[in-house]
């Protein structure tokens, strides 16, 4: 472990301690805490969707469907199986199980993606979202359209922070591995990447699996902040919210996703005094931003600190190449 990695580790641990401190000390109001947790959950959602939409170049519009499965599975575990006993001990387990179950459902979307691409795959994901919502509405044991409640407030800031870091860590390491290169090659040209012996089917399954896993985790965290979920909160509107965050931050950029999720969540809260007009001003800002910067805030660029050291040289070289070429 080099000195830089050690420093990252120390920073991460410091952040963790800070989260615990902020939560226990009561320095932050309950409202600010709540919003910070939403920011974290949205970062997880945005990053996982960015993996599909940004890195693999598909257009998935059903991410909330995965989130719903994670939310319901984790709630069933904490409320029905353990009857709210041993909450803090069971919760991490419940979150992970929720993630795994959600990942298993991602095959529904992954298999059609072998043949269908682009806008048609978008519809497949959309249909998936609607089917999940419709099924949940029809299961009476889970409250049907009335929703499911009784969860304890098991999610805390440290929890969200930890999962955020895990997501960033996994996505970052995936993207800069051989696996990540293969995924990027699918985005650029699927047929060509098939020809250079990338197993595109396997890659697609893996990407959907990982994305769904983290969406499920975000759903589990979400359910235990809200302490109440109903199928409507995972409708297509939720999916489009996440989409907006991905493209606002910039596709194919980890830092972009973090930024997109944060800006979106915080800005909408800051606009709250506007009342109904908040949702008029928000979309206008989005449209203006898209027109001025069609590739989002980061736009395929990455924060230099997130790029592996060996590759930073490449990025710099690319930039100088662009400069010399334009001269």
């Amino acid at each position, binding site marked *: 472990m080099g000195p830089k990695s050690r420093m990252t580790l120390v920073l991460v641990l410091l952040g963790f301690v800070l989260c615990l401190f902020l939560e226990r000390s009561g320095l932050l109001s309950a409202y600010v805490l709540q919003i910070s947790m939403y920011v974290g959950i949205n970062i997880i959602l945005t990053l996982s969707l960015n993996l599909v939409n940004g890195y693999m170049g598909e257009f998935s519009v059903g991410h909330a469907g995965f989130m719903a499965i994670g939310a319901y599975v984790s709630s069933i575990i904490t409320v029905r199986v353990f009857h709210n006993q041993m909450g803090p001990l069971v919760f991490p387990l419940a979150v992970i199980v929720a993630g795994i179950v959600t990942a298993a459902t991602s095959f529904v979307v992954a298999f059609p993606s072998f*043949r269908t691409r682009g806008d*048609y795959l978008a519809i497949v994901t959309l249909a998936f979202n609607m089917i999940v919502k419709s099924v949940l509405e029809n299961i009476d044991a889970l409250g049907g*359209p009335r929703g499911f409640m009784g969860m304890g407030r098991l999610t805390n800031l440290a929890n969200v922070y930890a999962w955020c870091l895990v997501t960033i860590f996994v996505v970052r390491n995936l993207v800069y591995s051989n696996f990540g290169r293969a995924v990027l090659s699918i985005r650029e040209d699927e047929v060509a990447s098939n020809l250079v012996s990338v197993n595109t089917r396997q890659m697609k399954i893996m990407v959907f699996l990982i994305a769904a896993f983290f969406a499920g985790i975000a759903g589990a965290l979400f359910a235990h902040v809200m302490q109440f979920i109903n199928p409507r909160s995972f409708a*297509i509107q939720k999916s489009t919210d996440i989409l907006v965050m991905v493209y*606002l931050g910039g596709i194919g950029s980890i830092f972009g996703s973090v930024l997109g999720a944060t800006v979106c969540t915080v800005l909408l809260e800051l606009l709250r005094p506007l009342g109904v007009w908040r949702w*008029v001003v928000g*979309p206008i800002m989005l449209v203006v931003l898209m027109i001025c910067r069609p*590739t989002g805030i980061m736009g395929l660029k990455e924060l230099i600190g997130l790029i592996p050291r060996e590759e930073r040289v490449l990025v710099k070289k690319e930039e100088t190449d662009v400069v010399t070429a334009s001269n």
Partner: protein
Amino acid sequence: MITILLQQMLNGLQVGSVYALIALGYTMVYGILRLINFAHGDIFMISCYFGFFAACALLSNAIPTWLTFIATMMVSMLLTALVAVLIERVAYKPLRYAPKVSAVITALGIGLFLENFTLATLGPTPRGMPSLLPNVNYRLGALSLSSVQILIIIISIVLMILLDRVVQKTMTGMAMRAVSYDKTTASVMGVPVDRIISTTFAIGSAVAGAGGVLYSLAYPIINPYMGVKIGWWAFIAAVIGGIGNVRGAMLGAYILAFVEVFTPMVLPSSTYRDFVAFTVLLIVLVVRPTGLMGRVTAQKV
């Protein structure tokens, strides 16, 4: 049993006609710009409000009701087309050469804006559309037919045939097909691409405007969020038929409407409707990845 079936088929035709009118807008814009215009459902909602205000303003005068109806329809179609062209010019045109998804996200933003602007200015209370035409119920044996139902089906079919003729036979239609086939070459051949795109938006939205008035005749409650559900369903209809294909959109709309109408007959609860509709959609896409009438394009490397 047969009468119920026939009755439901009639209802399906009525619902399907409205879906078809909206699905046409999706499919035309997609055909020409390769853009999923997510704001289209909300444009439909706006057209219902235009129809509502036009009807309220016109009803107080002593004009024959059928004239009021036609005028309402015209006003709604015209204003909706204007709004759509405005949106296209302001929001989509600057993004014509940007990545495709940026335009899609912009469309999502515009949709949200339309919804919430209506909500903020007109309030969340649903408005009741005044009944423009006397609703007469005809009985055909055991079947019951309302005049509104007949009107909706006939007007929709006439509009669809008209639109199909426009796209297939006129110069504008030819230009539309040319732009949809290859924008660059079309502009080299002297097709005014920008004007054709605006025309497409105008026509697609005017048809949705007609759909809006017809819809609010049958279901006379208008609220700012009504465009969301119908917009998505019309979009799905367009995809089932093969998005970008005008005839496919009509076919998809009727299929979807029949699924919607017949599901409650087979399954115990109507809450399974969405589930069945989307499962049909999934199966169609797995079997025919570009929709029922969509062109299968070979990928080049």
